[in-house]
């Protein structure tokens, strides 16, 4: 019988992600920042230009977050509440932007809209509509419609009901999603560089350029500190606001809450389809480019590019991608679920906001900083991880874990504590309660997180391109390399590889969709 020993509380699981975070994040980043901290670093802080960059970074991230939220909500509604044919495809499709290498998306937006602030904001939002749709949709699907019925019978129109009842209930998920999106956008690199040129600079591009082009470590360290501080401040504010809204909800099975839209809901469905259509525009332009000169690009996938631009073939890169993403996802699920369990069992603790924020930080620090940090620290671990192939999934897991946490936590936190207590009075120990109550209720969002995490790992570029060995290059790395070489074949192959990446993404999403129905029932 699986009875928990009294001493071993689920809260202890939190030590696992914390240890991981300490070794693979805090230590490397701390070391690199400390290395660069000297008198010159203060000059950077005193420079008003730095603060303009801070303002622009936060401003564009906030704007992109807003756009992603506004565009993502109707899609979340569509995914959560609407029973129409073809939902699985939409669910998979909105994930596609997430895997696309930022270079390629940047180029596509440049082609469609040119450069400037608006394209930066739109491109950043483009990547992240899925974060909002998935995170919010995951909770929305389980909300009991009768709370809304109650509001309607008190005279609230559909819209008022949404703003007064549904939205507050969704706030934890919305806050989670917004925090993640904000972090992605605040640390957005490729897109800003491509669409902003040298005119619109963010902390992330500045840190990158100082580190890589100017070899100015002290300036980069100072900016990294500023970045961490700004990110922490925004996260803590967000966590506060979110927690005020957290309340136990009556959760229901998704099949019961999804139905054919009625009345004004069709407008929302229309808006959602419009958003999906807009998402498809850049995607379609990429696919179109891949077949621009016939299928030469696809044929080239079995080779290594024009005159051996690559060390691996396209197909080998695809295999590498699938392999590392699998490792990263498994690791991230273990870490993310452990963290979520700990955060839920510690919900009354004082330091919970700090812990919550700490677990998000890897998304808020630039990949270069982490990558360089690895170089100067990880040789102290046995086996010199710096040159090991295992470092890539570890680094990807660093990015995927916070996402898993953010997707699963809102659902876990909305489970009525008394439901767990009911299980306990029926003889279930703390771990068993987990397996019997939390896991099934959050199962759907857990699977969504697994699929989502997998896609993120597939698409991860920053850390991967820094750490991958030539023979373990993944598809995004290969694409990045191909577009930075002249030659028509390279270009065609790059776009063919992009299309391959999208196909893999959709396939993974559809498989997860299937799994979900089979494994965990239809809750």
């Amino acid at each position, binding site marked *: 019988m699986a009875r928990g020993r009294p001493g071993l509380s689920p809260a202890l699981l939190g030590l696992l992600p914390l240890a991981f975070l300490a070794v693979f994040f805090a230590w490397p980043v701390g070391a690199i920042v400390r290395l660069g901290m000297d008198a010159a670093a203060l000059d950077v802080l005193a420079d008003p230009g730095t603060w303009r960059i801070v303002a622009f970074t936060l401003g564009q991230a906030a704007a992109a977050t807003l756009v992603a939220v506004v565009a993502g909500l109707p899609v979340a509604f569509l995914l959560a509440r609407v029973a129409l044919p073809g939902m699985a495809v939409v669910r998979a499709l909105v994930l596609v932007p997430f895997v696309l290498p930022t270079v390629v998306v940047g*180029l596509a937006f440049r082609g469609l809209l040119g450069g400037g602030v608006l394209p930066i904001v739109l491109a950043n939002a483009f990547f992240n509509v899925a974060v909002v749709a998935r995170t919010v949709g995951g909770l929305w699907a389980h909300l009991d419609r009768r709370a809304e019925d109650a509001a309607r019978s008190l005279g609230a129109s559909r819209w008022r009901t949404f703003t007064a009842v549904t939205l507050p209930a969704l706030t934890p998920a919305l806050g989670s999603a917004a925090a993640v999106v904000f972090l992605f956008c605040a640390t957005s690199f490729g897109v800003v560089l491509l669409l902003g*040129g*040298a005119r619109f600079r963010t902390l992330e591009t500045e840190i990158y350029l100082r580190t*890589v082009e100017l*070899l100015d470590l002290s300036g980069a360290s100072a900016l990294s500190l500023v970045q961490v501080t700004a990110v922490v401040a925004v996260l803590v504010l967000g966590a506060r606001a979110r927690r005020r809204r957290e309340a136990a909800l009556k959760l229901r099975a998704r099949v019961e809450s999804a139905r054919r839209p009625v009345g004004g809901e069709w407008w929302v469905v229309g808006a959602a389809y419009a958003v999906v259509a807009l998402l498809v525009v850049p995607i379609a332009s990429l696919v179109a480019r891949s077949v621009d000169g016939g299928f030469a690009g696809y044929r080239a996938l079995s080779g290594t590019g024009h*005159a051996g631009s690559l060390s691996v073939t396209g197909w080998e890169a695809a295999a590498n991608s699938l392999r590392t993403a699998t490792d990263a996802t498994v690791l991230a699920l273990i870490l993310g679920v452990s963290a979520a369990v700990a955060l839920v069992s510690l919900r009354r603790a004082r330091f919970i906001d700090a812990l919550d924020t700490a677990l998000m930080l890897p998304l808020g620090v630039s990949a270069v900083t982490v990558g360089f940090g690895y170089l100067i620290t990880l040789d102290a671990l046995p086996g010199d991880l710096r040159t090991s192939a295992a470092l890539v999934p570890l680094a990807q897991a660093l990015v995927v874990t916070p996402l898993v946490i953010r997707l699963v936590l809102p659902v876990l936190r909305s489970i009525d504590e008394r439901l767990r207590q009911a299980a306990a009075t029926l003889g279930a120990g703390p771990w068993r309660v987990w397996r019997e109550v939390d896991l099934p209720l959050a199962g759907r969002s857990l699977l969504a997180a697994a699929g989502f995490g997998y896609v993120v790992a597939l698409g991860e570029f920053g850390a991967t391109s*820094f750490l991958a060995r030539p023979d373990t290059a993944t598809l995004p790395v290969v694409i990045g390399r191909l577009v930075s070489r*002249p030659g028509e074949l390279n270009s065609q192959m790059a776009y063919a590889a992009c299309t391959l990446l999208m196909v893999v993404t959709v396939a993974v999403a559809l498989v997860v969709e299937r799994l979900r129905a089979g494994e965990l029932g239809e809750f």
Partner: protein
Amino acid sequence: GDDKPGDRTVVLVTHDSFAHDPAVFDRFTAETGIRVEVRKSGDAGALTNQLVLTKASPLGDVAFGVDTTFASRALDEGVFAEYRSPAAAEGPQRYVVDDSGRLTAVDVGDVCVNVDVAALESRGLPVPTGYADLADPKYKDLLVVEDPATSSPGLAFLLGTVASFRDGWVGYWEKLRANGVLVVSGWEEAYTQEFSGSSGQGPRPIVVSYASSPSAEIGEDGEPRTRALLDTCFRQVEYAGVLANAKNPEDAGKVVDLLLSPEFQRTVPEMMYVYPAREGVELPEAWAKAAPLPENPATLPAAEIQANRERWIEQWRAAVQG
């Protein structure tokens, strides 16, 4: 790091653009018993920085890819150990940075203005010949360059103008600006998005790229569609050297020799679009047509670049974007 003790493996640390013919390395292994493991990451700048950061506990034994722009930095930081290859005298010596014997030139590449010949023709314009033409109102709004702050070819082009115009370079850029030069942040946008001669078929027929780029843009007729302007080139030399604190310095030196060997040097143009540093290495046929070696490329001493880079970029910003 899975090599057993006594295993003769040399780790070659290099940048993303490194490419080689495995057959050459295999033959080397067969002859010497030394296995070469390649570890690539980032561009030349990132590579140099990695080497600097890890100099106490290096990622490998030998490094390749530190270029003219970053060489002084690497040397100042003591990244490399002394190793004088016997093959250095066969040509690489021409590009020596200093006399400490720590860096050996492996290849040279030129950053040059590229033009889309057909596009210029269709506008009734002759192919420009040098820097001066680019500022000519005839060629208004036709040039796209990379930002030197964010891109290595962009920086190289800037250095080329500094080397050519010396104190007058800022004035030259002001003219370029008046002539509608477009600045983008990276090579990818400039070449694949804005330049009309690449597969992206953008609007501008003149771009800053590499001397070797035309060899990748061969048309249906077997002729290159683009041409590099050989009087607008800036030469970048790529160096190799044995890392200080290497685990296996003896064998590392042998790998530097390998990189300078005629067998390896012969593959350099095809694999990396650059010219061998060794003299007397025969070039592929297409190169004569598509990528002839510039005769008088601009150069600047590494130390001068190191000393002035940031100031020049600031001045450039003020002149071009201010």
